[in-house]
């Protein structure tokens, strides 16, 4: 009896101990999914949790990255999300990703609720600059205002507030120099653990799709928020085509190993990681050489802490079938394009297709830069099958403001089963000042992708992104200023000169002289 009691007490004490003085924790996980046509999807997930110390005098960040901790503390950030990606996730072919991202970069932040809107605006600008500096990005939200305050989308499963700022920066290019600081935020860097696979970073950029993201959250431990913890989730998505990498041609299946793809193996686990797992989702899509430590349904789980204690490295070979089905299909597919373009304006059309047999409720978020002048009157939501106009559940439109903010459109829709809807809006080309054009004008001007939030009652909301569009604006010839000066000179000389002459000169008739007389007179003048 006493023993039992002691045992219970020890469990209780243990529980209290771990809850109150729990230190920094770190988990890492790599999920591998096999996709059709010998594509493989690698999803890295690193999760750090740091209980913020209560002391006001000093801050011991422990293993939590101080550079990020400083930013979120200084600007009073509650939540922060940054994604950087290269390539486009093919929703139709590859199904749903573990985490969606638009091409280029996307940044959103939720600020402390006690801040004033004005302070939030300045904190947002400054923090975006700090983030940009930290990751070597070129986000410049002051000169390229792209910020909106979304009302119905972006933050998942959370009460929406005015304290959120969202910006999507489609022209940001993701490169190794942005990845290095991202890796530096991991406690073990790329020295130990599954991040060892990221050592050869140029190899990572050979993938079809590459996305790195960072999600920070300040969490209250209790109702009164007397103690908080910082949570940082870093994820990395990679899609490789195994055939292209191994240079094999087999009609039925392709064989590859981790070493083939990353040119590196996992040899050690990060000593501070509590869990280091590799999850392999085979589900009748292929075979693997290494025996898993655990089997959940069709998922092979490799606990690397156990595995690497006995073996030198972890480098499984996988035989992948080519003709396989995507395990998780997208419930709604999205396609966006430019249509009806003429000299003055153009239309943007987004097709939304419900792939399900059930009704789906969605929120459509569109941010269009201010230099495309959008007319809300031209907004048409149509059922493509019946060609009937549809009244959306809700429309939230905030018109843009030149050089201050973009146009912001949110539409709530309920999609009928298997239906195709279209959202169409027209926009005029705006005129930029000659010094507002980006260095490379011929690249065109980006129109941000649409973010579609698919509301779900049972599960978490799903977010998918459309394509990024590129549009050309009327572009001047940049040697123009001097031409203008010359032209105005001429025009003014003609205009003003003749006016001045007419109003200040006397006009006299004179005898017409022949050449002889003219010459004579001229010589006479000369003689004088």
């Amino acid at each position, binding site marked *: 009896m006493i023993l039992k009691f002691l045992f219970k007490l020890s469990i209780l004490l243990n529980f209290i101990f771990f809850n109150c003085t729990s230190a920094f924790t770190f988990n890492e996980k790599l999920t591998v999914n096999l996709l059709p046509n010998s594509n493989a999807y690698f999803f890295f997930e690193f999760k750090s949790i740091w209980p913020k*110390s209560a*002391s006001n*005098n*000093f*801050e*011991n*960040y*422990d*293993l*939590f*990255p*101080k*550079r990020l901790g*400083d*930013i979120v503390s*200084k600007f009073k950030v509650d939540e922060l999300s940054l994604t950087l990606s290269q390539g486009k996730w093919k929703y139709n072919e590859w199904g749903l990703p573990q985490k969606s991202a638009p091409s280029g970069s996307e940044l959103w932040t939720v600020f402390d609720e006690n801040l004033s809107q004005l302070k939030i605006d300045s904190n947002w600008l400054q923090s975006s600059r*700090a983030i940009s*500096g*930290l990751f070597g990005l070129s986000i410049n939200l002051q000169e390229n205002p792209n910020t909106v305050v979304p009302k119905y989308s972006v933050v998942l499963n959370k009460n929406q507030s005015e304290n959120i700022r969202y910006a999507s920066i489609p022209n940001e290019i993701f490169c190794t120099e942005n990845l290095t600081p991202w890796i*530096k935020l991991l*406690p*073990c*860097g790329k*020295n*130990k653990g599954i991040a060892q696979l990221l050592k050869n970073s140029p190899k990572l950029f050979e993938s079809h799709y590459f996305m790195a993201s960072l999600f920070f959250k300040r969490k209250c431990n209790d109702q009164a928020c007397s103690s908080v913890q910082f949570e940082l989730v870093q994820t990395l998505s990679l899609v490789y085509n195994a055939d292209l990498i191994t240079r094999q041609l087999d009609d039925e299946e392709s064989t590859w190993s981790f070493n083939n793809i990353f040119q590196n193996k996992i040899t050690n686990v*990060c*000593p*501070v990681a509590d869990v280091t797992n590799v999850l392999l989702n085979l589900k009748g899509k292929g075979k693997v050489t290494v025996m898993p430590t655990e089997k959940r349904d069709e998922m092979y789980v490799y606990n690397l802490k156990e595995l690497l204690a006995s073996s030198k490295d972890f480098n499984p070979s996988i035989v992948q079938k080519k003709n396989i089905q995507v395990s998780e299909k997208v419930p709604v597919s999205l396609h966006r394009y430019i249509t009806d373009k003429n000299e003055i304006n153009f239309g943007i059309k987004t097709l939304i297709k419900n792939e399900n047999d059930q009704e789906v409720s969605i929120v459509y978020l569109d941010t269009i830069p201010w230099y495309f002048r959008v007319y809300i009157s031209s907004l048409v939501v149509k059922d493509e099958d019946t060609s009937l106009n549809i009244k959306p559940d809700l429309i939230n439109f905030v018109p843009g403001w030149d050089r201050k903010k973009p146009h912001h459109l949110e539409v709530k829709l309920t999609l009928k089963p298997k239906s195709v809807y279209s959202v169409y809006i027209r926009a005029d080309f705006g005129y930029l000042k000659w010094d507002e054009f980006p260095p490379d004008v011929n690249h065109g001007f980006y129109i941000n992708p649409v973010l579609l939030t698919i509301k779900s009652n049972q599960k978490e909301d799903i977010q998918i992104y459309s394509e990024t569009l590129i549009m050309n604006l009327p572009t001047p010839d940049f040697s123009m200023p001097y031409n203008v*000066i010359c032209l*105005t*000179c*001429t025009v*003014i*000389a003609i205009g*003003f*000169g003749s006016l*001045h*002459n007419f*109003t*200040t*000169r*006397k*006009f*006299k*008739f*004179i*005898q*017409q002289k022949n050449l002889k007389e003219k010459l004579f007179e001229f010589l006479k003048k000369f003689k004088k």
Partner: protein
Amino acid sequence: MAETEATSDSPQTNNQQLNEEESEIDKVNKQNENKKLHDLLMFNTIYYILVFVIVGLPIWFFTTSTYRASLPFDSIDKLTESLQKIDFKIQVELIHFNKDISQDNLSKIRDELLRNLNKNSKQKGLVLNFDLKTRKATSDEYNSALGFRDIQTFDENIANKNLNILNLIVLDSDLSKKYEILDNSEFLFLNSLLLNEINIKNLEKIAEYLKKQYLHLEKINEEYRLKLDTERRLPSKKDLKVVNFDSEYEITFSLINEIPEKYSNWNIDECIRSYFLKVTDQLSQFVNFSIKAQTLLYSDFGSYSLSSYKSDNDPFFYLKQTDLSIMTNYIESRLGSRISDSSAFEFVTYISAKQPLYVATNSQNPQETKSVSFMVPRWGGIYVYNPQDDNPEDSTIKVDKAMKTFLTHFITLMGIDLNKNSKTVPRSRIYSPEIYGYLLEKTLENQLNSINTLRSLSLLLTRINSMVIEDDIAEQVKIAVESVEKSLELGSDGRISEAFLNSKTAFISSERAFFDKSLLEKLYFPEDQRFAIYIPLFIPVGIPLVLSIKSVMAWIKSKKEKKD
């Protein structure tokens, strides 16, 4: 053309026509000679010129000129002149706890000491005026003095109360025995025995000691001399070492751990509390500190390899003196960027995977000269930690020793001169006379720096006319000028802590004004462009107008002649 054809066909009719035409021409010409018309045309011309001068030229001038808010150039010039003589009043208070000293003796001591202190005082340059007061310790003070645990608490409670006054304390034999002060050169405490016998030589010594050890007279004189020499702008020795002055400092303690499998913790929280917080609290009324700590695992020193000392019983790795800068660079790249602009101290504890690792000052003889830490000027310090020297089995790393070293580094990098005669060098507190010395030195330095900055700024702005001066820069300059003036005044009045705070404001505002990027905004815009943009105004409009001035002059002349 038609007329020429007509001439060739029938000369007679042509002549007739010509005559007729001529008479008509004459008629029109005569009409044109009409005075009224002539006057009207002249008025038109004058009107054009006036519009050009009154509207056109000002528009051109104001749209192309740069905005320049007015600056107090006169006050800046006056401040520069006032640099030739800066005076500080040093208020010294002698508190004696010795009941045996008679009032008579005491006043003699006072006069003699004051004479010694004010001896050799200069008329120009940096002038220190001493003011000496004596008083008996109150019975409260005496009683509490008997109860204090150590000298540090004594200093905190008796001497530290008013930092505008430099305290000399005379203890009696009981108290000096209690605090174990046997030698008069120790700390700020003067032995009672010494002062009982009025020995002029001793008083002279005390005066010397006060000037040298407490006020660092030589150093501040050198500082003053170098700062005044604006032609050469040589940095002083201290300038090269001390972290840039700022109103806020960020102190970061980093642990770079290459053996996280074995050592997982460090007792940094406890160490910061027991070593750093006391010192930063003491200075907190003058400057702000934010203290942070972080742990980093593994380091990447590229292709860099450590030297090793091979011996049978005691082999070790070591860093050569020349390696230290390379090492510091690698470590700094690992530490990452900071977001605040305040001055920073970086203190790094490094646990190498190669054990043991030392720093050798002499690579010829690493065995003899090995140490564990080095200070990086204007940056911080690095401590190489070897668990085997401490307690190799404990998974917690005890950084007490490192912290003591860092504290010494910190005090040096802050620019605080410790009393050389004080007993223990790595210590957890600064004494009040040391803070007084720091305040005096920094006040002077800030005053000199901000006046120099203001002068450079005013020179720059008067020389380059196309520099924009925005209102907020003018505001910063105004604040700087006012604060320097106030600080100089307070300094000569002996209120050193207020003088310091004002000099701090002056320094920060003047730097902010000088480095504001708006000053450079239009500098790249060359002068000739101002004309180029308005060439359409100048050439096609200006030239006809200038040419018509001649006829207007002639017209006015003829008018005048007529009047006469």
